[in-house]
């Protein structure tokens, strides 16, 4: 907590080496902002996805979004829309596209791109303030994205 002034979005970039079967960040195929094919080829685990969305050190989606299903998680932000009903408003492919790189769906979006490793201006080494090195990993790995998507799909209620 002391280390970072804000600690609002302490995402832990995954340190796990990318799985050989994963679609690499540069190879993700977007169609109108959506991504049809699974990034990992392994079905997502909604339970784990729920954890990632609420965990400060993982997705920390609640830094910007509120979700009634996550009412056990304190301090939810309101930068983005409520996630309630996201699984009703969007298809699984849409949600995969949004979490992978929201800017493909919403031009100029403030939402960070969770599965992207290049094209940044002055990328840093996590929250150290120092320059990134060749270990720069996406904010979430392929399976974590699939888990989050599997969870979002379950958010049918408003």
């Amino acid at each position, binding site marked *: 907590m*002391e280390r*970072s*002034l*804000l*600690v*609002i*979005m302490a*995402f832990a*970039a995954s340190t796990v080496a990318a799985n050989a079967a994963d679609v690499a960040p540069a190879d993700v195929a977007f169609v109108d902002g959506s991504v049809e094919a699974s990034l990992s080829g392994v079905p997502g685990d909604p339970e784990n996805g729920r954890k990632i969305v609420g965990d*400060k050190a993982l997705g*920390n989606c*609640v*830094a*910007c979004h*509120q979700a009634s299903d996550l009412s056990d998680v*304190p*301090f*939810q*932000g*309101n*930068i983005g829309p409520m996630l309630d009903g996201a699984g009703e408003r969007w298809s699984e492919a849409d949600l995969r596209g949004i979490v992978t790189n929201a800017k493909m769906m919403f031009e100029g979006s*403030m939402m*960070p*791109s969770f599965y992207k490793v290049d094209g*940044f*201006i*002055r*990328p*840093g*080494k*996590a*929250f*150290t*303030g*120092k*320059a*990134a090195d060749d270990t*720069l990993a996406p*904010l979430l790995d392929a399976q974590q994205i699939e888990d989050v998507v599997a969870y979002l799909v379950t958010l049918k209620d408003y």
Partner: protein
Amino acid sequence: MKRLTATLTIGLVAATLATADPVDDTLVLNGETEIVTRTEAPEAVADVFDEVISGWHFRGDETREMQADDFDNPGMIFVEQAEDVWNTAEGSVGKSCADCHGASEEMAGVRPVYPKWNEEAGEVRTLEMQINDCRETRMGAEKWKYSGGDMINMTALLASVSRGMPVNVAIDGPAQSTWEQGEELYYTRFGQFELSCANCHEDNNGNMIRADHLSQGQINGFPVYRLKNTKLNSAHGRFKGCVRDTRAETFAPGSPEFIALELYVGSRGNGLGVEGPSVRN
């Protein structure tokens, strides 16, 4: 009555987390000096804001009250320390600040116009740069570290004697190119999060980012005593933290980038009263 409204607003925020408007309150220093904490937007931001609002309105009741009274404001301890330094001769010339400038109160009106173009030096100077120039060329003393304790304390003293005076940073003439550089930095989406100052402080002030109530990111209150780290923090220190938290390679206090950014951000608060040392969480 105002206070009642403030309490009600906060109660609502806690309950719903949905809206978090700046608190409706008036900053009266030591029961006598009213400080302008919201005012019509200056030229630099007239196209994006109707009104510019001090970060003071975005803090809780206790934090706001602490700043309203010098006996409660922990930042004033550092002002007192700087007052001693102001009157102490140092360096090969054997002079104190007071030997050239008189009492510290004589410096009222200086803080509000910095950063400022210095004709002889041909550069935009922050208050810190000017202080160090005095130390080196007029006192024959060593420079202070840009955001070190001595420097922050002295900027707190110089801010304190200007409290209530409107920020009035000049952005035209020779300062213009530096100002434009600052503007560009303000809108650059840095780091792995690809976030600019504007994403948080222009587009989302009033909103919550996790537990933080986003303000307009004004610097009229600097240096700021933060309850979180229990010390005075410089504007460049805050910039450094905000850029770092976008998962970016940040810039250093005193760097040309932050000097330009300070000029630009300062001008976005033209018209707000000087508050430093203010209190924030």
